[in-house]
């Protein structure tokens, strides 16, 4: 570790003018200037890769999307851009499929996020008990996180099949009739929500568990001295302490559900996937974007969809901010 720069050199008395020492002190200042430059520049050099990559492949395309949205660009000739102004926005806003996809995204988002987070909260509470093999349980419930969207969607596609599906077989077994899960408007949304819930519940559980373990013990002691039951402790101590974490998971899950793509695309596969079912009953905004851009080959409207999603994201952010403010004031 010790590269030499003997400290006494820095404090050496001013040299008497001999050529040798002047050169030496010049070298000294050059060196200390280098040091100072190193000190000043290093942090920026270390964070530069992030901002360069993000700027080139994140921010620049994001802004460029707005420009493309005002043009006609076809997959067949990517270099030809023809100005159409608001035409693309006009097109998608007057397309009933867009509104269907918007509604579906919202519904599937709610149907997957709410049960997921509630179950995660309950599971985290259970895992917060002293358990035998607690690491084993944590690992098991996290296992679905290791599966890809594609494999998960394909397995559940088999489970939810109308004929020969595992779920219908079970329902038959307990005396219930067949359900055409994928064709129904609500049942197909349930199917997709189940895939999302399956993959992400364990993840959110662990986040809640981490937050629960950070709750100070004194709070529980004080509560139990006051005669609070376990349920009261959960409601009055655990939940309020977890508020920031819960808000955080809501934000993240909401953003995640806005992006749902693989689950609906692969639920039926084939051409039906790209349109989100024969009546677009489970088409999400991402699938709509894909269908316009990569299936039909019109990139202009696809970019317009991206900007619609950006608008939606800003609305969600604003709502979250308001909720956050409300939560903070009501918590006092």
């Amino acid at each position: 570790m010790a590269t030499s720069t003997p400290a006494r050199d820095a404090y050496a008395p001013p040299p008497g003018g001999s050529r040798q020492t002047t050169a030496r002190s010049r070298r000294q200042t050059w060196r200390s200037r280098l040091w100072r430059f190193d000190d000043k520049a290093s942090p920026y050099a270390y964070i530069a890769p992030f901002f360069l990559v993000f700027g080139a492949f994140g921010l620049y395309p994001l802004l460029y999307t707005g420009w493309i949205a005002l043009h006609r660009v076809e997959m067949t000739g990517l270099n030809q851009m023809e100005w159409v102004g608001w035409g693309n926005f006009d097109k998608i806003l007057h397309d009933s499929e867009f509104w269907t996809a918007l509604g579906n995204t919202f519904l599937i988002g709610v149907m997957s996020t709410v049960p997921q987070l509630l179950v995660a909260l309950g599971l985290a509470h259970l895992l917060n008990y002293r358990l035998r093999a607690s690491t084993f349980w944590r690992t098991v419930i996290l296992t679905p996180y290791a599966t890809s969207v594609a494999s998960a969607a394909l397995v559940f596609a088999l489970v939810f099949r109308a004929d020969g599906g595992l779920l219908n077989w079970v329902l038959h077994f307990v005396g219930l009739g067949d359900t055409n899960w994928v064709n129904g408007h609500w049942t197909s949304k349930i199917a997709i929500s189940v895939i999302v819930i399956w993959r992400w519940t364990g993840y959110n559980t662990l986040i809640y568990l981490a937050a629960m373990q950070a709750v100070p013990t004194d709070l529980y002691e004080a509560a139990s001295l006051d005669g609070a039951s376990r349920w009261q402790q959960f409601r009055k101590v655990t939940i309020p302490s977890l508020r920031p974490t819960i808000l955080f998971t809501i934000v993240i899950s909401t953003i995640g559900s806005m992006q749902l793509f693989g689950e609906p695309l692969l639920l039926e596969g084939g051409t039906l996937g790209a349109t989100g079912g024969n009546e677009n009953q489970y088409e999400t905004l991402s699938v709509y974007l894909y269908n316009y851009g990569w299936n039909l080959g019109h990139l202009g409207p696809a970019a317009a969809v991206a900007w619609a999603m950006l608008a939606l994201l800003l609305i969600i952010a604003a709502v979250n901010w308001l909720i956050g403010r409300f939560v903070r004031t009501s918590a006092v």
Partner: protein
Amino acid sequence: MTTTSPIKAPELGRPSTPHRAARRPSRFRPGAGKQLQGGPFAYIALTVVGIGSLLPLYWTLVAASHTQDEVLATTPPFLPGGRLLHNLDVAWNQAHLGKAIVNSVVVSSCITAATLFFCTLAGYAFAKMRFTGRGALMTGVIATLTIPPQLSVVPLFMMMSDIGWGGKLEAVIFPTLVSAFGVFFMRQYLIEALPYELIEAAKIDGANNFRIVRSVVLPVARPAMMVLGMLTFVQAWNDFFWPYLALNQQNPTLQVALGQLSASYTPDQSIVMAGALISTLPLLVVFVIFGKQIVGGIMSGAVKG
């Protein structure tokens, strides 16, 4: 991990006695003092959820080892059959899965290595170095977490074809070389784990900044880098949206190949499941070996990547 003496086990109602809290310093196990013994209900509930978590994976194996007719029969099979090797073989050849595996390994390894390198550097800078604009820049990093990839894929696709990366692995690797989550994760870890004294000592010894990174920061950061590496690898391996748009049938990653397999005209379900098995199995192995670290990593990171 916890040694439970059976005599003390049935302790319900009162969450913690000062005695127990004293025995378990909460510095090492936060909140350990309040931990109640889990009753039978906890085990039953966890078992149900555990089965629910694992059943679809088991069903993948079962479906991948039978013919499609058997899988879709009125009474589906419940035990693995004998067609596994045959189905794997077909999936391997039909969907370029061999190439897809190589591609997935290349993509995930490159992304993981780059993420580890750049995120550790940036995390260290944000955690321990003073520079103008640090707070604002860190806020910027975190803000990028909320931007979905959907917002930039259209121009990204055009850019990639412009610079000749259309359909190539570079198109998937380069946009993911760094991650905001990684920077944040390393920063959180290094704030706690790296004392200023260590950096000062190295400076007094005359080490320049990069040397400090190499011989002080990296050794301290290693455990966090392990976890971040595994999380990044899992994510890169499972990524679907952008690779599906950017790559094509001739040069897919595993997930893309899987998507295309199911999008073909009459997909044979047992072959599709064989493909799903091939794409999931490597990660499951990683998970069985490093499960504990990954769990710990998610709990300490507490941010969805």
